[in-house]
């Protein structure tokens, strides 16, 4: 008798063998300018259930550049494991050819050169084409959205997320979960949810008064003769990482015991397959998969990781589908008699130049953008260097934002949040108003200016580093490390809290940061209610208009030490 586990491993091995070969082929095809839609869609339909996973779109409806991280350290046991491998290590682990299309999509290696060969990625009209093609193979495929969908662009900000709601309704989502959605305010979320034609799931969202569940925890779908349960898990630390005053009556948390109870509840109702649509972040999901019994598939989100193969934890498949519309995951499953007997997986890269836009979706996207067309297109200046954000520490976009804060707000030091969203720009690209919103748009974008002592700055940095590098994933709370301007430092990521950050240097004077002296600090995205100041996108736009051309070298004032 062959156990279920054996089946899974056999399938996984097959996927590991096929994946790189296929990727290499795309690379060669692309070099011959023949990377085609049919190559991207090549997939032998398998089993009886298909899941399509999209997550962390951050309201990006247009094709974009998005450089993946070159530094993405994990805490504790996750160090050196996917999804914390980057660059050459990532390519070696997955056997990807260095100049292949997948290498370009998944790593920062030779990003600028390969970008010229492969072009931009994403675009909701291209995604609609892929989804339509998968549905042609499997009409009842489930489309699951991992959240961070209604936030992150100028149109989404101006319409309180309505543009994305309209577009995702047109795409035909079956269920979603959430995180940044709540920065629209709880009332706005409830208003949208009351009109959604699909499930808004979150088993871990409770009200603070009575500690009762607020949203549906799961939904059951009959697909291919199997009963599929989709349990939603919103970002557990939403009220800590984002302004809780915008949704004061809601409490989140991991709520692992309730997750286990929900798995048992859906199994008791006859679920043959249990899928968790999660916004936990990959490392939290990995730990949850090991501790909660009976989950077949976790569709991960939040940490923007993209993995070309599922990662197996016990008998649970973890799927990582990237962010910003760069990828769509197709997962075909053979589900029978309450068991997942095998799978076939493909992380489909959304190469915008190789995929025909779906005309209906293209028209809908254009209509949503039309009211803002003039502002979106305004060219503020040009960049002579690559602008990117993603990574544990300051990217070049962050350095540009920090410089804008210090110069426009007359500050000695700047702080900018370590969010993971925000596309890149290639050297030579114009910087439009849309581009600036893509890296700054939020409902609490006021750029504050305040006095902080050296000790307060140090304390804040230690606190944020603890949230990022805590060895236990359940204590990892937020995004990447806070970005700093005007400050150099050394960080020993594996030291305990209070001992990680040393060598803090006030760069303008070249002197050590004085713990007792007050410095003028400019920053944005404060979670404190009533924060005052101009909006960050206006601060950054003003700065770029004045500069005309910008060039930002890589940050060399942060030294990272491991071990």
């Amino acid at each position, binding site marked *: 008798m062959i156990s279920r586990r054996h089946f899974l491993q056999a399938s996984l091995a097959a996927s590991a063998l096929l994946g790189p070969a296929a990727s290499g082929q795309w690379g060669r095809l692309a070099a011959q300018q023949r990377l085609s839609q049919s190559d991207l869609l090549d997939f032998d339909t398998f089993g009886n259930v298909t899941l399509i996973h999209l997550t962390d779109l951050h309201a990006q409806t247009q094709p974009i550049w998005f450089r993946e991280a070159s530094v993405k350290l994990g805490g504790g046991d996750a160090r050196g494991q996917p999804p914390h491998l980057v660059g050459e290590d990532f390519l070696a682990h997955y056997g990807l050819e260095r100049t292949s299309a997948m290498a370009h999509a998944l790593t920062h290696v030779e990003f600028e050169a390969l970008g010229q060969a492969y072009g931009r990625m994403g675009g909701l009209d291209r995604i609609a084409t892929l989804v339509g093609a998968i549905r042609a193979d499997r009409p009842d495929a489930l489309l699951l959205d991992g959240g961070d969908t209604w936030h992150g662009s100028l149109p989404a900000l101006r319409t309180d997320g309505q543009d994305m709601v309209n577009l995702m309704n047109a795409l035909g989502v079956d269920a979603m979960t959430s995180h940044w959605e709540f920065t629209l305010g709880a009332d706005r979320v409830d208003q949208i949810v009351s009109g959604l034609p699909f499930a808004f799931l979150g088993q871990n969202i409770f009200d603070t008064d009575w500690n009762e569940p607020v949203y549906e925890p799961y939904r059951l779908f009959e697909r291919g003769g199997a009963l599929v349960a989709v349990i939603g898990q919103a970002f557990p630390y939403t*009220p800590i990482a984002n302004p*809780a005053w915008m949704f004061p009556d809601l409490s989140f948390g991991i709520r692992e015991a309730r997750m286990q109870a929900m798995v048992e509840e859906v199994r008791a109702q006859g679920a043959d397959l249990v899928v968790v649509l999660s916004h936990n972040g990959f490392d939290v999901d990995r730990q949850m998969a090991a501790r909660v019994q009976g989950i077949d598939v976790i569709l991960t989100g939040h940490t923007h990781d993209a993995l070309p193969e599922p990662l197996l934890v016990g008998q649970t498949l973890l799927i990582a589908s990237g962010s910003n519309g760069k990828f769509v995951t197709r997962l075909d499953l053979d589900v029978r008699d309450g068991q997942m007997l095998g799978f076939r997986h493909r992380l489909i890269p959304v190469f915008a130049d190789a995929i025909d836009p779906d005309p209906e979706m293209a028209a809908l996207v254009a209509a949503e953008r039309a009211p803002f067309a003039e502002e979106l297109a305004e060219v503020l200046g040009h960049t002579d260097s690559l602008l990117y954000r993603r990574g544990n520490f300051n990217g070049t976009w962050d350095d540009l934002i920090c410089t804008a804060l210090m110069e426009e707000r007359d500050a000695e030091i700047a702080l900018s949040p370590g969010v993971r969203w925000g596309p890149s720009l290639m050297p030579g690209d114009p910087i439009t108003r849309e581009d600036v919103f893509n890296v700054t748009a939020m409902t609490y974008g006021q750029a504050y200016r305040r006095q902080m002592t050296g000790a307060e700055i140090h304390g804040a940095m230690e606190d944020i580093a603890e949230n990022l590098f805590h060895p236990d994933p*359940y204590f990892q*709370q*937020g995004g990447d490390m806070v970005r700093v301007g005007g400050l150099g430092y050394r960080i020993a990521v594996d030291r305990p809290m209070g001992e990680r950050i040393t060598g803090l240097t006030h760069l303008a004077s070249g002197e050590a940061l004085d713990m007792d002296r007050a410095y003028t600090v400019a920053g944005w995205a404060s979670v404190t209610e009533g924060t005052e100041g101009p909006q960050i996108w206006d601060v950054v736009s003003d700065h770029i208009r004045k500069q005309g051309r910008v060039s930002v070298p890589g940050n060399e004032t942060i030294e990272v030490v491991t071990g």
Partner: protein
Amino acid sequence: MTISRRRILAVASAGLAVTLMPLPAQAATDAGDLIARFTDGATPGEGPLTISAPQIAENGNAVGVEVACPGARSIRILAPANPNPEVCTVHFGPRAGSRTLSTRIRMAETMDVIALAEMEDGGFVQASARVRVTIGGCGG
């Protein structure tokens, strides 16, 4: 009237606290003293005591903590880094159905919240949960 040892300890500790008032954070009452005050000096063991609290507090002003201990006669919750570390003591009568208590604690800083239970056989058990209080922000 007899004065129990616990009473004396409590009085002594109170005296100590008063003496040290001007010093920050009342660190003088360490967790060991606080535990001894409840157990009359006995070292608590492990038992059916469970404590659930969030890993990271959403709101340090109201951290939900639930403690359950079948067979407990009384349960005490300690927040050792708080100015008033003895949060509450709950006594269960012999006919109490569920030996569970749930409350919300204001927490000054990151700490191990400690639950102690005195069992019906007179023994003591202990469990703790780390709760982190953070400035937040920077969210994802």
